[in-house]
């Protein structure tokens, strides 16, 4: 066990994956000598050289598109998109090519490409640097989408994502990059070294976890919002409400089973994410909980997310994003039934 920041855990996870498999190649803008604008790849260029840590031209479609070609020849490209808001030039390559090639080829071509994206807000940034685009990808079959909330998950899941034969969008909660936590480095190593490691790893990263047990209300979150959900649980506990927190970890697949099981116990569900509420991941979760646990629900599933506006200037982000008060307000509302 060692203590790491979430960013540090990803860095260590990348290093472990590169040590494990010489076909793992990092590609992105400024990830080499600079170590990425968030320093997540710090030191890797020095230790693995410019052929394993590649500074690409400034073109996201080109980064994803060339990665697809490399993956066709057996490489495992791990890409960095510099900020959430800059993934869209690659949207065509991701949704029409990366996501569909396995299907198009009847399983003959697998594309184990990982796309790392520092995402979400709360860092006081300028436009396009604080967005949460997960729902814009989750509708497209062929992609997996995960987001770790803790250093341990960051360390494990980046390696599981790299081991998975499927393309994975790996969303890194950038406001949590400097959060520290204990990390056991041995568990994922033994998982991946075992027979069927890639399958086990894929399955594991696709499952949510109960981050805190409770009995009155289920609060569902992922990535940057898990910490908020835990704060909500604390605050609610002080008022006598017992909150169960589900950390989804995976958005595609969405581990609705874990949520539905919890919802059947609590009868009340609140979903939190930074992405706009409208047409967000919370909608899918709400719809599934209703479909599968309708007769257990005491109250409608409520959603707390960003608003249906562009991400505003950073001086407004604390009003725009879910915060303790807004989530507690939703908890109170579901508790009135």
């Amino acid at each position, binding site marked *: 066990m060692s203590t790491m920041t979430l960013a540090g855990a990803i860095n260590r996870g990348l290093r472990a994956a590169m040590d494990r498999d010489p076909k793992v190649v990092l590609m992105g803008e400024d990830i080499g000598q600079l170590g990425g604008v968030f320093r997540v790849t710090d030191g890797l260029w020095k230790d693995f050289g410019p*052929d394993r840590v590649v500074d*690409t*031209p400034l*073109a996201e*479609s*080109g980064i*994803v*598109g*060339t*990665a*697809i*070609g*490399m*993956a*066709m*020849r*057996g*490489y495992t*490209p791990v890409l960095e998109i510099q900020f959430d808001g800059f993934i869209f*030039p690659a949207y*065509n*390559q991701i949704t*029409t*090519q990366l996501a*569909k090639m*396995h*299907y*198009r*080829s*009847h*399983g*003959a*071509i*697998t594309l184990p490409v990982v796309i790392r994206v520092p995402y979400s807000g709360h860092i006081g940034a300028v436009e396009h640097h604080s967005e949460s685009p997960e729902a814009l990808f989750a509708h497209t*079959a*062929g992609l*997996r989408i995960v987001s770790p909330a803790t250093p341990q998950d960051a360390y494990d899941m980046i390696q599981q994502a790299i081991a*998975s*034969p*499927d393309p994975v969008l790996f969303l890194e909660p950038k406001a949590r990059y400097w959060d520290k936590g204990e990390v056991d480095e041995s568990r994922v190593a033994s998982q991946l070294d075992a027979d069927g490691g*890639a*399958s086990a790893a*894929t*399955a594991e990263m*696709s499952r949510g976890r109960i981050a805190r047990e409770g009995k009155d209300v289920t609060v569902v979150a992922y990535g940057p919002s898990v910490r908020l959900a835990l704060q909500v649980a604390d605050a609610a506990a002080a008022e006598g409400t017992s909150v169960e927190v589900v950390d989804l970890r995976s958005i*595609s*697949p*969405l*581990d*609705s*089973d874990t949520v539905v099981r919890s919802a059947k116990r609590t009868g009340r569900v609140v979903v939190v994410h930074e992405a706009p509420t409208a047409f967000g991941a919370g909608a899918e979760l709400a719809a599934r909980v209703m479909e599968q646990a309708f007769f257990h629900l005491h109250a409608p599933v409520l959603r707390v997310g960003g608003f249906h506006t562009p991400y505003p200037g950073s001086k407004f982000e604390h009003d725009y994003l879910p915060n303790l008060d807004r989530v507690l307000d939703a908890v109170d509302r579901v508790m009135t039934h």
Partner: protein
Amino acid sequence: MDAHGPLSDQGLVQLLNRHGERLEDERFSRYAADLDLEALLAMWHDMTVVRAFDKEATSLQRQGELGLWVPSLGQEAAQIGAGHALRESDFVFPSYREHGIALTRGVDLPEILRIFRGLQHGAWDAAEHGFHLYTLVIGAHSLHATGYALAMDRDGLVGTGADSDGAVLCCFGDGATSQGDVNEALTFAAVNNAPIVFMVQNNQFAISEPTTRQSRVPLAQRGSGFGIPAVRYDGNDVVASYAVARWALEHARSGQGPVLIEAFTYRMGAHTTSDDPSKYRSQADESYWAERDPIARLETYLRAQGALTDDAVDAAGVEAKELGRRTREAVKGWERPPAASIFDHVYAEPHATVEAERAWFARYEASFADQGVHA
């Protein structure tokens, strides 16, 4: 800057003119030097085969057996010439019209029609043939091709002088040159010195739009903007097509980096069977290009050389007929896999949503078996 537009025939490399006469070119003749009559006959053979296949596919579409067909009519020389310049160690990224190159890569032509019958999106094993699946999103594959070429380079398959040396041939049309992706591919290839040949088949149209809507200079000139050497040639001349492609592939295979070649040709047929070219081009234009038919001029040459006999022509006709029959039978004989196969290969590992929907679908289908169709 070239003063000529993108439809000019100035400065085209040509080694076999429309009258079936061989020409010399200081730079490229030597790349055609190994083309003896036997080799040319083989090319003629392939060109006739793919044209016959095209005809058959078109008629199957008319009969309602295919949803769509995309003819390569008129582009046989560009494709067969390039195809014969390829080595087994090379890898091709076609767009969706490269049936001629498919043939030279050992794809059994009727298999292509699985796509156009709506059975599947990809219809052959790309790795086995060194021939990637067709990509319908214009230009998207140019980046895959570049990445693949970079991977070949990493794998030590470039510039060693060994037979294992290879390069990527990436095909796209004149219209595709306007896509951002194609230009990004040129950038990635250039800065990384990728072993790739970008081959533009300028068939003068992107559906109804003439190449003048995509560029005001010849498309080969695009290369220079990225520091990529480029050549423009008569794509209806199979000898030039072979020679230029061979030069380009050798350049790339030997580690000298990317090349752009522009085959100036003409789409003699419709864009697809859904298209009606009479809406946007003249009979005169079509007649002009009919006189420049790539197969006819090779025939003239081979006949003049005494290399093409009536017997050979007859034999090719018989073979074409047989291919037609085999194609028809294959197409009509394909069984559609069960509906539940739509859930296969969405992911390489199980995905809960797909598995839940697959299970639901199985129950749903079973409910019909139990109860008969609803209502």
